[in-house]
């Protein structure tokens, strides 16, 4: 059976190296590629399930056109003619910016860039700024360290203390658990900070359960303990840190008792945490993404990051701040998060005019010209962006919607035309990662179904229909079968990066550092680690210091519970969950409640409850979980509208910095369902 080396392109830390066996033109088996040192141990259950997903009977394999209430399979000729006519007409009447180009993060690859190249040649479009996932943390890190990079994943094995702060690696980055287990086997300690007792907390020496959104206060109090007890690295602070004095003054106000009142974590546990941080060298702090989906979370992450900074843990093996590792972003002229931001000087071609976090409301509000059509690829914004009802309303108001998809998602169901998308085995591409430093080739290893065209070919054919300039097409778009040539041109600046070399296995990104910032060079305005950031004020209007402010939405009498909507191991956002292999593991979203809050409502596991707020409501099965902090409830995100989509309850709101989405700034009431 032929075996191929490839990689998983989903929006996931792990970006696993895979070995894939193909039988009779179909994927038969997915196994780990040990050459990827970060993920070589195994494949997660989603990666394994590509065997089903790649040839699922539910896959869209022909263009579908909405006629009346249902979809009818149509020919590519018809689909292309219709798209050319619609887009041509809209461009003529309202200008190209009446078309929304919405690209999600459902699949990684350099060829994704062809989409924007097409729309530029179209004359322009409207697109989004910001990002749903992680920009507050990226911006907090950028403001502080100057760049988003961290030590190689396997370096965690050198840590003497690992702090998983708002990060549930067991479910969202399971490969980190292997490196963590190796560190623990060598005697390292583990501290978990999370309102939930997650799977990752099971081996923790210390579990702190703060009230969601108060982590910044917790960090400041712990910083104060470290400073007061002389456990910081004074030489490091003196040589590399800007704003220590001011930060110290800020932190000194956060006594353990004050933090206990704000965070709900007993002072004794905070002290124990500070002692562990003070005594353990090196230590690695791994913050999660969920914690930075609040209206105060950029500041929160700046406060957290101060801890390894004060202890001199930046640039050392086994130490550091393991948030995002963008060392594989060598191809982008502007790295994340800067490329998420609207340009300082708009070019008049692409209108970067919609906040992803407020997609629905911004789409409805946009004028000059208002939006008339949308092209969606690699994303499922209706259930996955905040404020699902607004997003749905905005999409329904458009005249013409094209969605490129593998499956009939909630967004695809709203389309006028659904174009079948290739899968990861059907077109060659090169992908980076955001946890490990490898670039990996994702070669074409099976033929797509006969009517499935890669997006690049859809664009090419549409460009021909629309009569784009041939030379520009040849230069920036990809003719059918021209992927490798296009990729070679992109790889050309790096002689060590060739398709041949990538075909052998994962390749470390050019200049990748095993220990990030080992040279102690910090590309901030001051060249130092900035605990004081002028840009925090000038760009975001926030305090120059990571001052703690509670999140915008706080529990009250009407909506007394904080709702968290984390990711679960059984899906990547709205992908995978419906497969026969995975559906039985989590057939429906359950509302997890603490025993205290459940008892107060007379709810028991297996009951049904209505979770609601002023924005919407959902009726879900209840799971009483002794590991959940009272006052908190959670429902995994990623379920479809028919199953229970949590963004019916979320507010379209940005994070304090980075134009992220404050999904978890969300208070609800839970009642027994009638």
């Amino acid at each position: 059976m032929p075996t191929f080396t490839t990689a998983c392109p989903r929006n996931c830390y792990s970006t696993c190296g895979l070995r894939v066996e193909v039988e009779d033109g179909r994927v038969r088996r997915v196994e780990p590629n040990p050459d990827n040192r970060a993920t070589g141990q195994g494949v997660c259950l989603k990666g394994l399930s590509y065997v089903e997903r790649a040839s699922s009977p539910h896959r869209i394999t022909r263009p579908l056109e909405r006629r009346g209430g249902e979809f009818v399979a149509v020919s590519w000729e018809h689909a292309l003619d219709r798209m050319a006519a619609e887009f041509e007409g809209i461009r003529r009447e309202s200008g190209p910016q009446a078309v929304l180009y919405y690209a999600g993060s459902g699949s990684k690859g350099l060829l994704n860039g062809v989409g924007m190249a097409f729309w530029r040649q179209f004359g322009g479009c409207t697109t989004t700024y910001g990002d749903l996932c992680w920009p507050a943390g990226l911006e907090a890190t950028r403001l502080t360290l100057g760049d988003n990079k961290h030590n190689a994943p396997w370096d965690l094995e050198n840590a003497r203390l690992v702090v998983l702060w708002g990060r549930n690696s067991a479910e969202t980055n399971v490969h980190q658990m292997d490196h963590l287990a190796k560190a623990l086997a060598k005697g390292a300690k583990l501290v978990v900070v999370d309102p939930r007792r997650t799977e990752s907390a099971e081996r923790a020496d210390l579990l702190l359960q703060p009230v969601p959104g108060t982590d910044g206060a917790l960090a400041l109090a712990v910083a104060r303990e470290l400073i007061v007890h002389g456990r910081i690295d004074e030489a490091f602070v003196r040589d590399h840190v800007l704003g220590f004095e001011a930060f110290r003054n800020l932190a000194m106000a956060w006594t353990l008792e004050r933090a206990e009142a704000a965070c709900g974590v007993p002072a004794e546990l905070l002290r124990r945490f500070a002692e562990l941080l003070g005594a353990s060298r090196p230590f690695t702090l791994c913050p999660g993404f969920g914690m930075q989906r609040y209206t105060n979370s950029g500041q929160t992450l700046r406060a957290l990051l101060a801890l390894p900074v004060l202890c001199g843990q930046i640039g050392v093996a086994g130490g550091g701040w393991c948030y995002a590792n963008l060392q594989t972003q060598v191809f982008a002229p502007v790295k994340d998060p800067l490329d998420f931001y609207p340009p300082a000087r708009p070019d008049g071609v692409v209108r970067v005019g919609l906040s992803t976090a407020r997609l629905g409301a911004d789409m409805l509000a946009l004028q000059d010209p208002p939006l008339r059509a949308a092209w969606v690829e690699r994303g499922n914004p209706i259930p996955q962006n905040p404020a699902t009802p607004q997003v749905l309303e905005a999409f329904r108001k458009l005249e013409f919607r094209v969605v490129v998809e593998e499956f009939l998602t909630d967004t695809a169901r709203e389309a006028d035309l659904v174009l079948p998308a290739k899968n990861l085995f059907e077109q060659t591409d090169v992908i980076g990662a955001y946890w490990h430093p490898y670039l990996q080739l994702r070669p074409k290893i099976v033929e797509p179904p006969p009517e499935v065209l890669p997006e690049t070919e859809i664009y090419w054919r549409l460009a021909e229909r629309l009569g784009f300039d041939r030379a520009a097409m040849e230069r920036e778009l990809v003719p059918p079968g021209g992927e490798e040539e296009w990729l070679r041109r992109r790889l050309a600046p790096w002689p060590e990066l060739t398709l041949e070399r990538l075909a052998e296995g994962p390749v470390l990104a050019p200049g990748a550092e095993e220990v990030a910032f080992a040279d102690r060079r910090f590309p901030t305005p001051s060249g130092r680690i900035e605990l004081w950031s002028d840009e925090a004020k000038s760009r975001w209007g926030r305090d120059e210091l990571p001052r703690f402010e509670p999140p915008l939405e706080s529990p009250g009498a009407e909506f007394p519970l904080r709702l968290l909507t984390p990711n679960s191991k059984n899906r990547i956002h709205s992908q995978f969950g419906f497969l026969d292999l995975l559906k039985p593991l989590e057939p429906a979203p359950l509302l997890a409640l603490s025993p205290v809050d459940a008892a107060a409502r007379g709810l028991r596991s297996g009951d049904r409850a209505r979770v609601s707020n002023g924005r919407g409501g959902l009726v879900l099965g209840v799971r009483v979980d002794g590991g959940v902090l009272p006052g908190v409830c959670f429902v995994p995100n990623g379920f479809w509208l028919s199953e229970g989509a949590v963004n019916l309850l979320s507010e379209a709101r940005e994070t304090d910095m980075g134009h992220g989405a404050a999904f978890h700034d969300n208070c609800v009431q839970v009642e027994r369902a009638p």
Partner: protein
Amino acid sequence: MKAFVLDPPRCTGCEACRVACCIENRVPMERSWRTVHHANAEHRPDQPAFHLSLACNHCERPACLEGCPASAYRKDPATGAVVLDDSRCLGCRYCAWMCPYDAPRFDEARGVMAKCTFCRERLEAGKAPACTAACPTGALSVEDRRPGLEEPTFPGLFRERLGPALRIAAGALPLVPRMAVMDAAVEAPPTEARKVSLRSEWTLWLFTLAGMAMAGLQLGWVLGGPQVLPTWAFLAAGGAAGLLSASHLGRPERAWRAIANLRSSWLSREVLAFGVFVPSAALALALGSRGPLGWFSAFAGTALLVCMDRLYQVAERRPAWKSRSSDLLPAGLQLAALVAGAALPLALLAGVRAALFLAAEGFRWRGRTLRSTARVAALLVPAMAAASPWPVPPGALLLCFLAGEALDRAGFYAGFETPSPARQLLRAGFSARSADPA
């Protein structure tokens, strides 16, 4: 020869092993050969939450193989794998009762059992089993098998000398860190740890009762008592009981294979004893022969009861001397004494069995005093009536006795438990779940 190694503290319960197994073997998740048992999924604050990923452990002394009446299992000498030849399988599910790891799974559609093959083809090709190859945390792996019958010790594992190819790498589970709420009473979701219930096994309930009654009547007749059933009725009852018991098989047409493992399977021996008893007893009745043929048939009937009792005792790991009031052999002997009018044995058996019942169930059986009273009365009344000077119609005594037996036997099935990971977890004080609640 290989063995699984499981390191529970490393296991995050992700179920990649189970998914990989289903893909490799083209088995749907609902019937997966590997099960991940989640302990304390509701997060009781004073207990660790952990996971046990278990499939077939390819024991040195496989309980499934020992119990299988059809000799459908064998031990592959090259890999050590316990291999099921499903073309021989009757679908009687006795192997599922026998296996303390719940490895054999019933395939409803095909009417046969299916189980982990140890990925024999992969092992022979020098590859690890699919489940271990997939494990992303290094919690499940394979190693060269250590010789001997070493038994792993861990909550969820039943300890007996089967010699499973399974080593538990961790000595102990981690301690639970202090949590926000330590005193909350967290209700554990109900665990279905039993593989047998009266509802699922009512045909066996009837079959064993019929076997007991026929063997008892025959022995009583040989001992000089009256012939209670006419010969035709006896034959009809035997035929009906046989058909009834065959009807619970996944593949009734293969019932004839059930005597293929007389060497080690009490189920095979039971089937053989039944097959000898019914015709020989009918013949003896027809000929009115209380002589050698009669004694032969009575002996076969008694052997049948021994086999029936043993097959349940072996499955629930109950030593033969730990008699229960619902056991069939003493019941059959008591019936024989009743029929033969042997007052002393009758009284002795009734007394002993009543005592056994009360010792096990007390005066409130399954919450009801009435049930307990009825059960004991059904044992004692016929014995006392037989000794009393007042005439009581013998038919009424017989019915009273049988009603009591039916009641007790029903209770036996309702409470019958065989070792399983879920039961062992419960016994260790943990809730157990093997599938997420819908």
